[in-house]
């Protein structure tokens, strides 16, 4: 079995050494965000400031990366979360991960702080650090242009240099968006990391792997979601269904429906703005939108950006959304946290609590405002700190839309209460993906699980959180999990009695799902192409005996090590919370159940997870998972 190759780079001294990953560590923690969390847990002293030189940043890939498996070019950054103080992982689809692997490294661990603004180069097994002070203040595009096109690059913009707490890191036109990935690089004085290599990713059983991949690609292409909707409409295709289901955040999550939603929908996007679709390396789904901004073809906005820079700030100018999305990428800022913070500031202004120069429905100054945020100019420096920080200074905690300090994604959870539970329990804060993405089952997809009932949501939330954890850590794009909803149901439609039966059965499955986690991996000793195609591919590429059961258990282990990290950093059950706007105030006055019944779901969620009533993993659970 090939073990991952990691380098430990001490930026203070400029030294590089190998960092061996043991067989046990590899088989238990796989790669990507799970191995990243474990390494961080072991290497980072508790209580370290995420922006201090002593902090650690891990940039790594999963075993699938570069193997040619579908949608497997993504890489991960793990670090201490700048916004929450807990665990952070940020996933990115640019070329950097593939090139770092080709250059001979599955991961790099950054420690210390470079004395001057620097760049790291990784070229065919050799790592060097060089002066990058000439690139100071450059945007993400200009910075990447300092290397030839076919290299993989990961850079920060001005926002990262100025330690904007939600600064992102950029690779090509993709971003490691969340949690302050750009700020932690900026704090280490790292402007860019560039990689180039010629090595091929190893696949242990190529003979069986290649036909399996072929079959899987065919399956993805035949599925209505990954073969049709995502390529046709991209993620912005969600706007219409989110609006119809009352989960499209509007006016800082005051409402879940936007009267001008048609202007920002995926259909309008496709008809009026799309030049073509594109995708990450080795991806047959190709969900990326290409659009024109100021006469140049660039990557278009994703659903999150459309929702949060659209309905959530009462704006329906889609061309402008694409423009601000592009500018945010150039400056190097996460559009979710940026737009979420702006919407909160707009409501502060509306309520007369603070005037930070922004207001609902007035987008005209925002391009200028985000530039000032990135440079932390004057009062805009406050906006660079995120909603939680702003609420502590100006008040408005009840409508500061974040969980643990990380702004929520573009799903209003009062009409998708399982999504609300996911946000509250997600280890990195208000993240839909780390939260299990139950919105897909409850409100925006073909299935119609009762969107207000707390029943079954804790069990399903745990199931999907663990699954996504494993899929991401293995190196696959999470969109490959969307085929778990059978294609046949899309044909029948959401009103068909079979679809309704499946929805009900999923809620009913809660009685089976709790014991499942105590019976893994032996309970699922098989691989399930139509549900979790990843596990078999993982086994074939690494040479490990892998089953769906083992795969899910690795996901569970990952979620638990992240939780242990958070607990050690002082995040407790008290932080598994949402603003009271979402838990206490019905979204629709005539629908009293349109609130997130968090208090009703959390105790059950902890039970299903094998945690005590304070949300602490029980020793028995940790022993079962082998977490030490």
């Amino acid at each position, binding site marked *: 079995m090939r073990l991952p190759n990691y380098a430990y780079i001490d930026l203070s001294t400029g030294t590089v050494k190998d960092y061996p990953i043991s067989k046990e560590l590899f088989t238990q923690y796989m790669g990507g965000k799970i191995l990243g969390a474990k390494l961080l847990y072991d290497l980072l002293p508790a209580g370290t400031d995420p922006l201090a030189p002593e902090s650690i940043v891990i940039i790594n890939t999963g075993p699938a990366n570069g193997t040619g498996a579908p949608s497997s070019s993504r890489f991960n950054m793990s670090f201490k979360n700048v916004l929450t103080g807990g665990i952070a992982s940020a996933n990115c689809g640019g070329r950097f991960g593939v090139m770092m692997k080709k250059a001979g490294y599955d991961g790099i661990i950054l420690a210390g702080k470079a004395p001057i603004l620097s760049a790291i180069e990784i070229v065919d097994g050799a790592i060097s650090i060089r002066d990058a002070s000439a690139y100071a203040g450059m945007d993400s595009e200009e910075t990447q242009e300092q290397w030839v096109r076919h290299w993989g690059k990961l850079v920060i913009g001005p926002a990262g240099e100025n330690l904007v707490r939600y600064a992102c890191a950029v690779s090509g036109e993709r971003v490691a968006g969340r949690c302050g990935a750009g700020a932690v690089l900026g704090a280490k004085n790292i402007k860019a990391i560039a990689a180039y290599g010629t090595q091929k990713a190893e696949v242990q059983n190529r003979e069986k792997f290649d036909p399996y991949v072929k079959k899987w690609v065919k399956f993805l292409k035949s599925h*209505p*979601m990954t073969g*049709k*909707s*995502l390529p*046709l*409409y*991209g*993620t912005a*295709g*969600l706007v*219409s*269904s989110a*609006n*119809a*289901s*009352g989960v499209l955040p509007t006016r800082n999550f005051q409402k879940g*429906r936007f009267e001008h*939603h048609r202007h920002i*929908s*995926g*259909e309008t996007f*496709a008809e009026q703005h799309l030049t073509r679709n594109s995708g990450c390396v080795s991806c047959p789904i190709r969900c990326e939108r290409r659009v024109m901004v100021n006469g140049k073809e660039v990557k278009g906005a*994703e*659903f*999150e950006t459309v929702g949060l820079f659209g309905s959530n700030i009462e704006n329906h100018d889609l061309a402008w959304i694409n423009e601000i999305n592009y500018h945010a990428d150039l400056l190097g800022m996460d559009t979710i946290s940026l737009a979420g913070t702006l919407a909160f500031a707009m409501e502060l202004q509306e309520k007369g609590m603070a005037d930070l120069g922004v207001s609902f429905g007035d987008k005209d100054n925002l391009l200028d405002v985000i530039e000032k945020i990135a440079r932390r100019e004057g009062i805009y420096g406050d906006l660079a700190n995120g909603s939680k920080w702003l609420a502590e200074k100006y008040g408005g905690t009840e409508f500061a839309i974040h969980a643990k300090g990380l702004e929520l994604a573009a799903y209003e959870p009062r009409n998708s209460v399982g999504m609300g539970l996911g946000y509250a329990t997600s280890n990195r804060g208000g993240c*839909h*993906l780390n939260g299990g*993405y139950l919105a*897909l089952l409850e*409100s*925006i*997809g*073909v299935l*119609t699980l009762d969107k207000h009932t707390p029943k079954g949501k804790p069990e399903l939330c745990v199931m999907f959180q663990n699954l996504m954890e494993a899929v991401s850590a293995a190196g696959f794009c*999470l*969109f490959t999990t*969307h085929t778990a909803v059978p294609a046949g149901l*899309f*044909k*029948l*439609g*959401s*009103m*068909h009695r079979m679809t*309704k039966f499946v929805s009900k059965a999923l809620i009913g499955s809660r009685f089976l799902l709790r014991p499942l986690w105590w019976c893994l991996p032996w309970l699922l000793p098989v691989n399930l192409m139509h549900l979790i195609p990843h596990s078999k591919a993982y086994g074939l590429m690494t040479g490990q005996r892998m089953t769906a059961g083992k795969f899910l258990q690795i996901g569970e282990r990952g979620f638990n090590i992240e939780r242990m990290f958070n607990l050690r950093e002082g995040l407790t059950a008290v932080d598994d919370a949402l603003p009271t706007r979402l838990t206490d105030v019905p979204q629709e006055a005539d629908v009293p159940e349109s609130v997130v019944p968090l208090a009703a779901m959390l105790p059950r969620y902890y039970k299903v997870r094998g945690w005590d009533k304070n949300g602490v993993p029980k020793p028995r659970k940790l022993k079962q998972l082998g977490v030490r």
Partner: protein
Amino acid sequence: MVKLVYHGELRHVVGVAEEDIDADTIKDVFRHISDTYGKEACGMAKSGLVALNEKRVTGVSVRIPAGSVVGFYSFCSGG
């Protein structure tokens, strides 16, 4: 009268963006689509998301108040 608004692929299949029809329930609407544009179009309409006055409907027997708008969208996903 009820206004039907087609979006995305379905709009191309039926060949119109919107139309006004007489219908009391969602079932009547599907019957109209099937009779006018054929079974394939009706299958497509059924397999997507149907919204009555911007709110998702999940049953064919739902009554449609006069003057309502019924919209047809595709399902999608995100992340």
